[in-house]
């Protein structure tokens, strides 16, 4: 393998961060979403979560507009 070396695996500070956040809050939800997940998947996971938030908000508003 003609290369230097792979990136050092990231240590898990996320659990410490999550512990500093109020359970149930969106901040806690977002950080928990990333814990134990491959960082390469973070962007997709967050984008999906944000999309779901938008859809939920929009659905609630549509219900109100019916």
């Amino acid at each position, binding site marked *: *393998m*003609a*290369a*230097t*070396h*792979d990136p*050092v695996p*990231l*240590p*898990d*500070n*996320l659990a*410490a*961060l999550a512990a*500093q*956040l*109020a359970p149930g*809050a*969106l*901040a806690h939800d*977002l*950080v928990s979403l*990333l814990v134990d997940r491959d*960082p390469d998947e*973070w*962007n997709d996971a*967050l*984008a999906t*979560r*944000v999309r779901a*938030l*938008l859809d939920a*908000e*929009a659905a609630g*508003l*549509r219900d*109100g*507009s019916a």
Partner: protein
Amino acid sequence: MARLNWIEVRGFRAFGPGPQRVCLTGPMALVWGPNSQGKTSFAEAIEFLLTGKTVRREFLSSATREFADSLRNAHLPDSDRRVEVSAEIVDAAGVAHAVRRVLDADYSPSSACSSTLRIDGAVASDLSSLGVRLSLPPLEAPVLMQHTMRYVLSAKPQDRTDYFKALLELADLEAVRGAIDRARSSLRAPTSPALEALARCQGQAVLTSAFQPLGAGAPTQRRVLDSISDGLERLLSAGPDPVPSSHEDRVAVARRLIEERERGAFPVDALRAGTLVAATGIDAAIWQALDHFATLVAGVDQEASRLAELFTAVLRIPTVGAASGPVDCPVCQTPNALHPARIAELRQHLEESAAFRTARAEALPALRRVTEFADDAQRNVFGSCPAFLGWDDPERARRGFSEEAVIEMLGSASAFARPWSERIAPLRDSLAGVAASAAGLRQITGGINVDALRAEQVGAARVAAAALVGALSAFASTLTAYRGAQGPVVATLEAEVARRSQTTALRDVVLLADQVAPLLESLVLARAHDQVASKLDRAVREIDAATGRVLDAKFDALGDEVGRWWSLLRPEEPTSFAGIQRAGTGRRYIDLKAKLSPEADGSGAHALRDVVAVFSDSQLNCLGLAAFLARTVRAGAGFVVLDDPVPASDDEHRAFFLERVLGELLASSCQVILLTHEQRTWKDAQLRYQHLPLNVFQIALDDPRLGPIIEETADTLDAALNRARPYIGRNHPDVRKTAAERRRDATERLCKLLILQDLHASGNRSANLSDYDGKNLGQLFPLVEPLLTRDPSDSGKLRVIAAQLNPGNHDDTTPSAADLKVSYGNLKAFRRDYLGAATAAPASA
């Protein structure tokens, strides 16, 4: 933790073609060599083995090109490309592994080096499988060199922050923040023509009160319709007519008003390109029908075909149709003219004539389809062209259309005119191309008499049809380009026409009335966006605050570790390292704090200042070393390489380094490779840790082509005695003279060790071997004699040794072989009796 058994370097930086191996059998290796002899090359070789690069390039070069071809020894012949560093690494389970990194490509002016790492012959990406854990960049390897030690202090503030964050391995926190930032940034407010029209309405004073309510609360269809209706009422109430009560009537009145006001205004719609129906060409079946019929036409017996109906009538006559023998012809009455063979021939001919008629029936519509294709193509392209292209000059003048008028109408947006104008001529040309191709095809099909259809006519039509398809494709491209340029021009002109006709607000409200459902959906999405964005912003603030608390805890812990190493190096000083604090959020900057005490021993109330402002050069150096050691221990590195960690100018802290820092590292089972240009440090370390199985080396560079030579050479009493042993019992005067010199060195070392042992026992732990450099046996003996208390005869034995050896060092008679043998035995006895286990273990191989 992993540890090293040996390291071998070949062709790397100063190292030449002869592999230089350093065996590391003990917990600490001590390598001495004057400056520029290859010590740092050796340290960098270990760094290269571990990381595949040298961080010196990142730290010291102002441009990457400066490090081009820097890893391969410049003196290696061109044919010798082998640059490699090998090692035997023992993993946590005690299993030894052969590790080898080969340089594949050196640094170039524009690219990094590349290398191949193998563990036990198998290619590997890193050494993590052996328990060798690297830290995050920039300082990944547990290798301390001058440029890495001072990096923490010379780096820019942001880089320094990154360095300490790398120590704490907080990159995942940064990555989390970055990922959430990206998610937040990707949240885009929805846009739509309806929302844009709504925004314009909300900005109109007369409409504000009608549409402002849509900016708050849940959007509903009722509220949207109410706003639109209210807006229309406000606009129409300014006119002469009464405002209708129903929503639909208000919209209709608004439309009529717009039409009235804009009548005679600039013909904006004439610029708009229409829809072009995609050309599908002519089906292959059409051409097949024409080809088939042309073939039949070429082969048919025209006269026989003409008589087909007559033949049919004849064969319908029963005497002919059922004839089994010759019969008279019913038409010309020729006797026996129709015999069975002739009747069969007539039947065959009639069948062929039927196929001919079928083919003709198919060829006729096929020919029409080809003509229609030409007509459709021309109609299609003319229909998709902007209308103004079809106007002649009088018509343009009548409608007030000209390119100059367009530019004038565009006003400050006249820059849109040029790209639009530049696309008119290509569009016109391609339109003419379609018209010409269509005419050509029509001319061919128009000249065809289907009953005399020839294959070459079908071929010509096919070629013309293909040309028309090509012309249509070219037209489609130019139309697409025109449409792209047309967009901003038409939008601007529409706005300008509306402005001049005072229909802007009316148009916007009517647009909203036409798009109630899209507007409602856009409002829902916009409101959802705002609410999610607000929640995400709050979440980011909470995460930032939480990250700050995590950082505080981490920095406190790291600060304590750095401070512990600091206090080992510089105990009880009035100025000391206090800790690491984040500046603001800590995302970009941190502060390294110094504690200033009024008392000499560091006690008392203290003040905090930034270290970069108050630390001396020596203190900054110490902080760099302390930070590195904290990182190494934190990372759980099994070994550490220290290249001149204490500057020669910092003599007062050298003893603390040898005594406390090395002691702490060894106590934590961290294998130490100490490289130093200070012979005194090298000797004192050997003495201080003589109870350990040290590996002691000297490195020297005599021939740059050969590179540094590393030799294992201890400087202990045992080593001195061992060096004297080969001369025992030899009678040649020169050999005996050399033997006396060797023995004299050993005796002096014995005396120094006895003195030091006594001083250490009495509490003076800072006394070092080098304190007695330059003292000869005559000066040492009075200090040692009182210490020889185990046997009354010991003092005399030592006097005899001194007396015998003295001539050996001068131009006197050399001691006899027997005398030398006796003195050697006495020296070994002194070592055993007075120094005991401290020197019992051999310190050299």
